């Protein structure tokens, strides 16, 4: 490589622009990059974009160094004095929050909501003007012998303190227009509200306090 090309390479590294996408691509490749380096392969040639990005991004270079240290064969890991116990409450199934009494179904949504919030959020979809993306959406399938599917979706409300909760119910043996007038009660710590489904099996609760979302529970009456 001649000196002009070498200078051009350095200049391009200095002029490289930074964006999250480039860092994300670098991090995705970093494990394989370090593995190739430790295996004495031609890692810079195998991962030229990663190599160049590491020269132009201090944060990624530091991430690389941490990974390099821990992936070295025989790396002496400093041992903790004690290892705390893990919290395995995430293993509880949302189904454990469902109970029945006669024709009433009680659904405690806390666990399902915790899982929904813990999942990586998908990219925001394009919404029509004035239509807001949901705060969250949780679907429970095969709720019981009568209820095929129950979907709970919360949308932002006009006020920062409240949200709008929409419930969509699918029954195994009934469909539009026979889904009207199923009675629902949504309750939370310190309050509750009632509503009935329309002929599509949809019901809306307005003005549900946002800070009560974690304690939401639903009672569904099927005649």
């Amino acid at each position, binding site marked *: 490589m001649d000196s002009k090309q070498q200078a051009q390479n350095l200049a391009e590294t200095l002029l490289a622009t930074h964006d999250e996408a480039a860092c994300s691509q670098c991090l995705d490749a970093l494990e394989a990059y370090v593995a190739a380096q430790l295996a004495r392969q031609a890692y810079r040639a195998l991962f030229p974009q990663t190599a160049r990005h590491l*020269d132009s991004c*201090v944060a990624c*270079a530091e991430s690389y*160094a941490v990974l390099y240290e821990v992936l070295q064969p025989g790396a002496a*890991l400093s041992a903790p004095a004690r290892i705390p116990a*893990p919290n395995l409450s995430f293993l509880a199934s949302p189904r454990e929050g469902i109970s029945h009494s006669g024709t009433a179904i009680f659904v405690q949504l806390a666990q399902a909501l915790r*899982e929904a919030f813990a999942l990586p959020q998908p990219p925001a979809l394009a919404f029509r003007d004035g239509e807001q993306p949901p705060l969250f959406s949780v679907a429970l399938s095969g709720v019981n012998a009568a209820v095929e599917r129950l979907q709970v979706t919360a949308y932002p409300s006009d006020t920062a303190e409240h949200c709008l909760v929409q419930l969509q119910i699918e029954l195994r043996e009934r469909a539009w227009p026979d889904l009207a007038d199923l009675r629902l009660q949504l309750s939370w710590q310190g309050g509750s509200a009632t509503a009935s489904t329309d002929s599509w099996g949809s019901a809306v609760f307005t003005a549900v306090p946002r800070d009560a979302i974690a304690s939401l529970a639903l009672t569904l009456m099927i005649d």
Partner: protein
Amino acid sequence: MKSSDDNLRLYDDCRTGRAEGYEALWPGLYRVAYAMLRELPDRDQAAADCAQLALIKVYQTIASCRTPTAFRAWTMQILRRVVLDELRRPERRRRMAMPAEDSSDLALAPTSVDDLAAVVQQILTAAPLSERSRRVVVGRYFAERSDEDLAASEATLSGEEVRPSHIQVTRSKNLAKLRSDPQIIAQLRELVDP
């Protein structure tokens, strides 16, 4: 090295949501998180948080594990990514930021040179970099030496252990220092081929 059978048994336990599987994964995840987070003042809590988050991600994404015979290695990949994300949080980086080698401005004299190679050489000569930093940049870009080779040279010169990863971080930081000078950037923009 854990056997394939051990991996498969563990994978099956975790896939079916058995607590035993996650309890078996936990100590290894915690130890690696603890080792990676050694620079943090709240290392114990951060290690517990990262290992816990990794455990939940394993639970949520286990269906995407393509090689159950290497299940432990797969969970470690998840953990390492979680820890890197933790270390990259802006508040962490602000706290851990190392002082610059030399905080003075470069203050390059305006040049009439229109040859890119000459300008780059002039920048490297005028920049307030230590000799070691200059060797690390020049060695990579103009002598085309590997970081392993540069690390070996620097270790000989200093009499201390120098790893290739140290070379990489040193070079990135010094290039960032050069990049922070608007005059250098403006000059290079005019000369670099689009």
